[in-house]
């Protein structure tokens, strides 16, 4: 178990970056690179991190970054991995760092190809559940009921389950993360770094401008997402699914906070009726019935 005292003091994302106040994607970068160390290369498709870096000739990231078009993170990272291997360099961690649009929608092909090829890299999806950079349009990761600028009446379809899609690729390590649980977060990054092959990490990142919340609420919302069971923290380690420490007790329904306590704090769910909220609660409960079935078992054999 990592304790916060052991976390690296070095900062790799510098102050003066261009993120919004309360941005948990930036917090995630901070924790991720602390966990991975300076021998890390980021490959960043179009996403909020394209902006967070700041404007040329300045940058806020103190590791090398290759910026690349929207659909291509998985493939461009594959190229970096091959290029490093051709040079005999084995000790650098290549990370594709993409938003939910760049992962579950436009970038899914390149990611799937890279995973199927067993590319030795970490693919990170930091997920604020919409196209944030362009002003909150719906993505395949937007949850049921959420308002976005392209779902003015709330999204009618559920969120795409990307970690399970990745599980079907039979890659060695998959995990879901929340920066509100920093030790769990850091351990998962360290484990991904130590594992050979394709690793997929999916982080839920509360987004104040997109979720219509106050900046100081981001960490609490991350916790509530986990505590209500809306965002389950788990690992799929060599196809074995296991709930992580913060989520495991929630198998018992009584331990889960009602989803309403998470939804009602966000402007994007403000329009939801009691009935709509109970429908979402039902979906979450169903998810947990499924987690109960697959916990500690081999999935997608």
């Amino acid at each position, binding site marked *: 178990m990592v304790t916060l005292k052991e976390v690296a003091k070095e900062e790799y994302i510098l102050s003066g970056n261009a993120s919004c106040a309360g941005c948990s994607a930036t917090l995630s970068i901070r924790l991720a690179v602390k966990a991975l160390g300076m021998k890390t*290369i980021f490959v960043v498709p179009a996403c909020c991190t394209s902006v967070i870096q700041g404007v*040329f000739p300045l940058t806020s990231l103190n590791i*090398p970054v290759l910026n690349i078009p929207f659909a291509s993170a998985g493939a*461009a990272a594959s*190229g970096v991995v091959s290029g490093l291997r051709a040079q005999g360099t084995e000790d650098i961690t290549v990370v594709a760092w993409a938003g939910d649009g760049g992962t579950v929608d436009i970038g899914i092909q390149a990611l799937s*190809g890279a995973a199927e090829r067993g590319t030795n890299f970490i693919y990170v999806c930091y997920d604020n559940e919409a196209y944030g950079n362009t002003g909150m349009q719906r993505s395949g990761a937007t949850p049921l009921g959420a308002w976005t600028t392209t779902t003015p009446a709330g999204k009618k379809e559920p969120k795409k389950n990307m970690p399970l899609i990745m599980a079907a690729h039979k890659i060695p390590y998959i995990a879901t993360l929340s920066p509100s649980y920093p030790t769990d977060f850091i351990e998962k990054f360290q484990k991904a770094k130590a594992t050979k092959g394709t690793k997929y990490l999916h982080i839920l990142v509360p987004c104040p401008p997109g979720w219509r919340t106050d900046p100081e609420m981001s960490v609490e919302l991350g916790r509530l997402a986990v505590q209500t069971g809306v965002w389950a923290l788990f690992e799929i380690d060599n196809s074995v699914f296991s709930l992580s420490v913060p989520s495991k007790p929630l198998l018992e329904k009584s331990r889960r906070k009602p989803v309403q306590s998470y939804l009602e704090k966000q402007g994007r769910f403000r329009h939801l009726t009691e009935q709509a909220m109970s429908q979402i609660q039902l979906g979450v409960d169903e998810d947990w019935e499924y987690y109960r079935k697959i916990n500690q078992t081999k999935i997608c054999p």
Partner: protein
Amino acid sequence: MTRTLLDTGNHVAGFGAQAARAEVVAAYPITPQTGIVEIIAELANSGRMRAEYVCVESEHSAMAASIGASASGVRTFTATSSHGLAYMHEMLHWASAARLPIVMAVVNRAIGPPWNILPDLNDSLSQRDTGWLQFYCASHQEIFDTIIQAYKICENSKVLLPAMVCFEGFILSHTNMPFTIPDQEDLDSFLPRYKPGWKLDVNNPMSHSTLSSSDYYMELRYLIQEAMGNAKESIPAVDKEYADKFGLPYHGGLLEEVACDDAETVIVTMGTIGSEAKLAVRKLRDKGHRVGLARIRTFRPFPIEEVREICGRAAAMAVIDRAISFGMEGQLFTEVQSALCDLKKKPLAMDFVAGIGGRDVTEADVEAMVMHAKKCAEAGQVDQRVTWYGLRR
């Protein structure tokens, strides 16, 4: 040891990548380019080529992976055709503006619909403005030589741009022609190991291709234009150096000139139609017609001055385009006309759109086109600015 082999144009391109010691190849198969990816997979698998071969899942990813590999600091090669090239379009811009000297074989093929796997140049010509150098080859030897030369030209710190080495599908890709591969040690001294000016380096972290304001963007674009100018200077010099070092024919640098000194009528074309035109020039010269040929080797950078000098002396000019820019004319015709527009004395100019979708263009066809242009010149007027040669309707 210098070797002379007989093989297909596709295999020649693969041998070119091998001889250039490309370290990463990321490619996706498409007819008629497949022979290239197959030979490289075989060479890499057997250890005869020390390269990482990435079997990507699309051409968009092929170029993305090439960008990643090149940015990591290694010599990178890829190949595609037609729809594959079109699918790469976004990434083509990215590769050049990121100033990565990737070399790509483009086996020219018509674009659908209707599906057609035969050659014309509309695929690569529609990538004109992507910031890539574009070479057009007329023989197997030229394919091999141009791949080696392209790396030398593109990796020059004054250039740092990617290059397409284009050749027509089936006509060159699937036919056998003899070609010479110089001794590998001599090739290595001509084209030493790639030393990138910048790369993704954990000891010198930078954000590459990051967000930029208009304070910088325009200047960054100007630098690409300047690099194209530098490439233009370097292309003939590198071609000459190569020919001298290996005792192989000089391909003409930016354009191959055949019997243009006293030519009254000049044929301007690209690719294998240039080979047919060479034969036509010889025949017509034998019959006493003062005909010459300017076979454009580099569409980008475009040899403006050379075209002005050659065509400016002539009375008539027949441009043969194996491509069409709909709503205008053949792309080569537009470029040539633009190069000549402010000359005091201009040749009478005719465009022949020919060989679209792989329709055969023979020496006899070229002869007919050039004689038609000559007749118009003698009559003092063009009957048609653009003629779709051999069009059935």
